[in-house]
């Protein structure tokens, strides 16, 4: 199983009208969708409104999503169209033109460099440092399990094979690793009033 299985599970529940499941999808993708919208709409306030509208449109169109593509790719198209339509309605031209290849290549993390404020970049760098320190401070067995999951993308079954331990142990180690990192991140966030 992979993170895209998470999307499938949540999408199926959302298609049955479960708003809580859709809420988790919004929380998961809002940063990336906001990044995409910012490529078209430069004003941060307007970009936030368009991002919100894109998710509302996505929920309304969710019945039409058949799972032929990844949920994020589908969501990306909706958000790109929402941003273009917004600009057309305002009589403006987009700053750039994003493509579906961008959606699939988004994991490279370069897309938003041009539209983030210096403060956001600084906070992102700082938080990334905190996460890195927290990861290195983990006991070996927790760090190995989390790294195999997050960086190598292995399933719990595969990690269990690599680490020669039961799947339940893998699940528990990944959970404890995330808890430890989350504790450090919360400390950082509580210290940084500007970071949500």
């Amino acid at each position, binding site marked *: *199983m992979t*993170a*895209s299985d*998470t999307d499938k*599970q949540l999408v199926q*529940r959302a298609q049955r009208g*479960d*708003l*809580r*499941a*859709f*809420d*988790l999808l*919004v*929380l998961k993708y*809002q*940063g*990336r969708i*906001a*990044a995409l919208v*910012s490529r078209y709409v430069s004003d*941060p306030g307007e*970009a*936030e409104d368009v*991002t*919100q509208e894109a*998710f*509302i449109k996505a*929920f309304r169109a969710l019945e039409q999503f058949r799972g032929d593509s990844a949920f994020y790719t589908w969501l990306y198209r909706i958000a790109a169209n929402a941003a273009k339509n917004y600009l057309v309605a305002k009589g403006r031209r987009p700053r750039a033109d994003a493509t579906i290849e961008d959606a699939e290549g*988004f994991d*490279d*993390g*370069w897309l*938003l*460099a041009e539209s*983030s*404020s210096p403060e*956001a*970049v600084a*906070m*992102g*760098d700082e*938080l*990334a440092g905190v*996460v890195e320190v927290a990861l290195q401070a983990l006991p070996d067995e927790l760090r190995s399990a989390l790294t195999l999951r*997050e*960086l190598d993308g292995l*399933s*719990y079954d595969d990690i269990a094979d690599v680490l020669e331990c039961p799947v339940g142990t893998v*699940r*528990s180690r*990944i*959970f404890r690793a*995330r*808890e430890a*990192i*989350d504790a450090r*991140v*919360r400390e950082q966030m509580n210290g940084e009033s500007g970071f*949500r």
Partner: protein
Amino acid sequence: MTAEDRDREALSALMDGETQELELRRVLDSISSDPSLRDRWRRQQQVRELLQGQRRHLPDVDVSTRVREVLDAKRSVSRNPIWSMAVAASVTLAVVMGGQQLLMPSSGVTPAPVVSELGGAVVPVFGAQPVQASLGAQSLPVSSRQASGAQSAGQSIAAVYERLARDRYHRLNGRHAASAAQSHPAPYISYVRVPELKLEAPDSE
């Protein structure tokens, strides 16, 4: 392990697509009652993006609350009983109006009931006209002769219905008997048509 720990571990497994349907349902229920789980989900998604090198330059926006409020509000409106009644009333009204339009004669003249020249009446549907079936079928033996009166029309209609029902019963009964005779291993006669039955006294011979 406490219930809260179990929920947090399930949330972690959900991030990796490693939860079963029942566990997912439990997590969603817990998130509804414990907002800290929702915050944890958001933070851990951010940590994942940082670990995978995606997040460093993402804008820090949170539209989730506004999206949820808008969708909740829309759902509340659509679930409102007054709204539902209004929709149902509109549909009913549209159906009634549409039906009346279809039944209204185009000339504006109220047509009289039509009766068959063969003695049987046909059902006097308001606004109905005799029609010619396609592909060479014969038209109904019907004319536009006016019925003599509403009362006689009603009686003849009742008689027609009764006769049609009787004919249909005999036809089905005969078909059933024929079918049973063909399929039954020991043929038998279940239906005999007797034109007339004469009973004679035993001492007449």
